[in-house]
C-alpha cells in the first residue's frame, strides 16, 4: 500500500473542460487522488480522460482547455497557482512524462544524444561536456550497450524498444520525483514491452519516486502497479490496490474484468459490459 506520509502529489476535485462549437465538453470531472512513492495505474476506456488527467498535472493541456481543481499540490508547489516560469522549471526536472510512441515523440532531426543532454543543460546548467557524460551514463543505465554510438543516432535509426528506453533516459536524467507515463508500452511488442517495463520498474524503485502509469491493459496494470485508479467517462469510479483488483466492487470495473478473455479462465462467451447511466452521477 502507498505510504500516505510520503505523498508527492495531491489532486482534489480536478476537472478539465474543452469549449467546443456544440458547448463545453467535460473531459475530466471532479477527479481526486494522491500519489506517493509508488506505481499508480490509471485505466479506463479510450476517451475516459486518462491522458487529459496526466497532462493537466503537468499543465500541458491544450491551450483551449480549462482546468479547475480545489487543490493540486505537488510536493511544495501549488500547481494551480504556479507561474508558467515555475512550471517550466518543474517539467522535466521534478515531474517527467513519457509518451506512447517513441517514433513520434522524439524529434526526428535531432540526434538522440542531443535530445537527452538538452534536459540536463536546461535544468542543471551543465556544460555540454558534462551533459554528454551524464547522457552516456544514463544510456548505459537503461541497458543500451554502445552508448557512444547511440548518442549520435537519429530517432529513425533506433528500434521501438530502444526508442522507448531513450525516452525514459531523457526523462529520468534530471532525477524527477514523479513520472507520468502515458501508455509507454502499447506501441511495443509483448517481448520488448517486458524489457522496457522492467527498466522503468527498476528505476522507480531504485530512486524511490512516484509513477503514474496510464494504460488500458488491465492485466498489465494489475501486475505492474501498486494501486489502480479506474476511470470512466472522465470520472474516477474506483481506486483499488492492484492486488485486490479481482475483488473490485464497481460494476464497471467488474465488467471490464469479465470482458477480458483469459488463458487461465477460459470462457465460451465473454461478458458484455452493460453501461449504467447511474455511473455518471458521482
Amino acid at each position: 500500500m502507498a505510504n500516505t506520509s510520503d505523498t508527492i502529489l495531491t489532486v482534489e476535485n480536478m476537472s478539465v473542460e474543452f469549449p467546443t462549437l456544440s458547448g463545453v465538453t467535460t473531459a475530466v470531472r471532479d477527479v481526486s487522488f494522491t500519489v506517493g512513492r509508488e506505481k499508480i495505474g490509471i485505466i479506463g476506456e479510450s476517451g475516459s480522460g486518462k491522458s487529459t488527467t496526466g497532462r493537466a498535472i503537468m499543465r500541458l493541456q491544450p491551450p483551449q482547455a480549462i482546468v479547475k481543481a480545489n487543490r493540486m499540490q505537488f510536493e511544495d508547489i501549488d500547481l494551480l497557482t504556479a507561474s508558467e516560469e515555475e512550471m517550466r522549471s518543474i517539467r522535466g526536472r521534478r515531474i517527467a512524462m513519457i509518451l506512447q510512441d517513441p517514433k513520434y515523440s522524439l524529434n526526428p532531426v535531432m540526434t538522440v544524444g542531443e535530445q537527452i543532454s538538452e534536459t540536463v543543460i536546461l535544468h542543471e546548467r551543465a556544460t555540454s561536456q558534462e551533459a554528454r557524460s551524464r547522457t552516456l551514463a544514463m544510456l548505459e543505465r537503461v541497458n543500451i550497450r554502445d552508448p557512444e554510438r547511440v548518442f549520435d543516432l537519429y530517432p529513425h535509426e533506433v528500434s521501438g524498444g530502444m526508442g522507448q528506453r531513450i525516452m525514459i533516459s531523457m526523462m529520468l536524467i534530471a532525477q524527477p520525483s514523479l513520472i507520468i507515463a502515458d501508455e509507454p508500452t502499447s506501441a511495443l511488442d509483448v517481448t520488448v514491452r517486458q524489457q522496457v517495463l522492467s527498466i522503468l520498474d527498476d528505476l522507480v524503485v531504485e530512486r524511490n519516486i512516484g509513477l503514474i502509469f496510464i494504460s488500458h491493459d488491465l492485466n498489465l496494470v494489475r501486475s505492474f502497479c501498486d494501486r489502480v485508479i479506474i476511470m470512466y467517462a472522465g470520472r474516477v469510479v474506483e481506486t483499488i490496490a492492484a492486488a485486490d483488483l479481482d475483488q473490485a466492487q464497481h460494476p464497471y470495473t467488474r465488467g471490464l474484468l469479465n470482458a477480458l478473455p483469459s488463458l487461465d479462465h477460459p470462457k465460451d462467451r465473454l461478458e458484455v459490459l452493460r453501461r449504467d447511466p447511474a455511473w455518471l452521477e458521482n
Partner: protein
Amino acid sequence: MSMIKAHHLAASYGHGDTALKVVKDVSFEVQKGETFGLVGESGCGKSTILGALAGRNKQWTGSIEIDGETIGQKRTRAQLAKQQLVFQDPFGSIHPRHTIGRTLLEPLEIHGKDRRQERIEKVLTDVGLPLNFRYRYPHQLSGGQRQRVAIARALILEPKILLLDEPTSALDVSIQAEILNLLKDLRQREQLTYILVSHDLAVVAHLCDRVAMMQSGGFVEIATRQQLLENTVEHAYTRILMDGSRGYVSERRNNKGEALPV
C-alpha cells in the same frame, strides 16, 4: 474437408536486389468451420500471409488451395469473393466519405448482385447495427461500430472465409468482447472459416482451434487450443508470448537478473 490449403508458401516484397523475403516456406491447412490463429511479433509476416490468401499480395510462391480450388496470382471476381479481409484499424478501413449504406452497396454493385437493399438490411442486422445507420458516415460511429461495419462489408458477399487481421487490437476490452462474441456467433451461423491474426494469446485462445507461432517469416510451432490452455506448449518463444499476455513479470521479484531468455 479442408477449406484452405497452403503448401510451401513464401512471399516477398520488392524486386531485384531490394527484394525482401518476408514469409519463408510455411505450410498449413484449415478445415471448414475451423479458426486458425497466427501470432508473432510485429513484422514477422502475419499480415503478409493473410495478404497472399486474400489476393492482396501477388508476390508469392508455393501453392494455395481455397475451397478445393487451386488459386493463382490473378483471381477472378468469384474467387475474390470467397474470402474477405477484416482490417485492424476500424478508422482506416472504411471510406470516410461514403455513408455506411454506400460502403455496403459497393461490393454488391461490383458483383452485380440483386436484392441490394434487402441484403444490406440483412447484413446490418447480422452484425447487430440499427438499420438507419446506413445513412451515417463513419465519423459518426464508434470504433466498435465501425468494426462491425467492416465485418458487415466482408460478409455481404457471402464469403466462406474471413481473414481477420487483428480485428480487435484497436478496441477497448469491453468492445473487444462484443466483437469476439459476434465473430463466434457468425462462425456458427454462417459456417465460416476464420484465420485470425493477433498478438494477444488470450484472444487467440478464446477463438481459435489451432494457432501457429511465427517468428521472422516462419512457423516455429503450431499449437492446439488445448495446449495453450494447459500451458503445454513446447517452444520457448511461445512461452514468452504466453507470459506477455498475462501481464508484467517482475524480474526483481523473480530475481533472475536482467536478461530474459530468447
